[in-house]
């Protein structure tokens, strides 16, 4: 840059990039626009046969793929499922997310959607009665007759994982069980809250937490690999009524209703029973 220092690397023939002329910039811009015009529609345009779009609570991840597959085999209607927190889906449905059916982890959100006018009245139906299991990284040593919940106070289990009671229905049930057992005070310092039940499963799987509350479906999945589970009885955590609802903005309400019938029908319920859900 300094005129005083004479440039020594002289004559290596490097070209300037002053060749970037306004005309070329303009053409590049136009070409980019054209490219976007061509590619974007292919991305966003609906496919010939749009699948039935389901927003499902995270605890269904272990079981819903099988049910959806059976449904598609029977009716020929493809199904596409998004898993997430019931609370987030509730917010998104309130802002017209393009789902056809919402399967919540509780009864509260679907009923609320119907009341707010985002759900089709009469389509909020109970599809499962979700139960909790308590998962331990190893079988706790217990005196006979003592509830395994009490084993949570054993500090050798490390962190206790449960879903956040403020946003997750299963978290509320877990907290209820701890309250009934009188363990909230002693355990508060040791518990970790997951955003949803999937995250709780993640904590347990990786060993970040030594024990925790899971929905029966996910507990089933985890048990096959390691650990020890104890089904939490209804006296400790009342079973969760899980509801689904067809959404007002859906253009495929009939297909959504037939999915509802399939899930509540005998073949759908068989899947839930096998996974440990009650009805």
């Amino acid at each position, binding site marked *: *840059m300094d005129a005083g220092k004479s440039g020594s690397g002289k004559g290596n023939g490097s070209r300037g*990039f*002053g060749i*970037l*002329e*306004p005309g070329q*910039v303009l053409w590049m*811009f136009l070409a*980019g626009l054209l490219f*976007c015009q061509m*590619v*974007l529609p*292919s*991305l*966003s345009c609906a*496919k010939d046969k749009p699948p039935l*779009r389901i*927003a499902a609570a*995270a605890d269904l*991840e*272990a079981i819903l793929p099988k049910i959806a597959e059976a449904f598609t085999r029977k009716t020929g209607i493809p199904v*596409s*499922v*998004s*898993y*997430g927190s019931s609370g*987030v889906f509730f*917010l*998104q449905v309130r*802002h*017209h*997310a*393009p*789902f056809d059916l919402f399967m919540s982890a509780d009864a509260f959100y679907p009923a609320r959607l119907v009341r707010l006018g985002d759900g089709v009245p009469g389509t909020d139906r109970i599809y499962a009665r979700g139960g909790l299991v308590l998962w331990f990284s190893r079988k706790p040593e217990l005196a006979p007759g003592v509830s395994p919940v009490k084993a949570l106070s054993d500090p050798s289990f490390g962190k206790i994982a449960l879903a956040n009671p403020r946003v997750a229905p299963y978290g509320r049930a877990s907290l209820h069980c701890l309250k009934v057992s009188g363990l909230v005070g002693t355990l508060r310092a040791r518990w970790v809250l997951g955003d*949803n039940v*999937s*995250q709780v*499963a*993640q904590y347990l*799987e990786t060993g970040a937490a030594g024990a925790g509350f899971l929905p029966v479906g996910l507990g089933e*999945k*985890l048990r096959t690999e390691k650990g020890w589970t104890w089904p939490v009885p209804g006296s400790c955590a009342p079973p969760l009524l899980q509801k689904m609802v067809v959404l007002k903005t859906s253009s495929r309400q009939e297909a959504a209703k037939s999915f509802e019938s399939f899930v509540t029908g005998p073949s759908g319920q068989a899947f839930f029973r096998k996974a440990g859900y009650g009805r």
Partner: protein
Amino acid sequence: MFHSPFGITLMLSFVTASILTLLGAPIAYGIAFSNRLGSVAGEILVSLTLVFPPAVLGYFLMVCFSPDSVFGHLFERVFGHPLAFSFEGLVVASIIYSLPFAVQPLTQSFRSVPSSHLEMARILGAGRLTTFFRVLLPISLPGLLTGWVLSFAHTVGEFGVVLMVGGNIPGETRTLSIEAYEDLLSLDFANARKAVFALLLLSLVSLLGIQLLNRWRRSG
């Protein structure tokens, strides 16, 4: 290809980075060459999304994009489908989310161009536009490209905003980072590994791009 999470992520990052580069140039110009108050205000405004929790920003954008809002309603009237939960919605959200990553390197580049060069362009008869396109922008080309690569990389790794605004719809708004997260949570490690590998690949390519750019800038 376009509907796989990899394709969507690639496309989203590419489109976002390219639009941001075009959009960022005049913004960076405004920040670099306005008076002190204007430049401080502009920089704060642009960087606001850096401190905002992505999920909260995503919720805010989702509300803005929904057909209930004036903006979302207008978009739906013009394009025939809502902005929220669509690929276009993701693009708009990513542009807002990655804005500082495109604007800041370019602002720095603009500021480091000696004012004597810009004065000389004026003395040689160039107007503002000519000076901008033929002197300022070409000299700042490394900054422009750094901004492109950074916003590309940032969009690849974006999660909270995409989850909120996009709604995790397979084939349309499910990006690699959401897929990786979902696979991890559902204990599906085989698929998670694939998604993470793809993410890693994209990140490596972007970072390599930045390294090459830096080398070019030092030698140029």
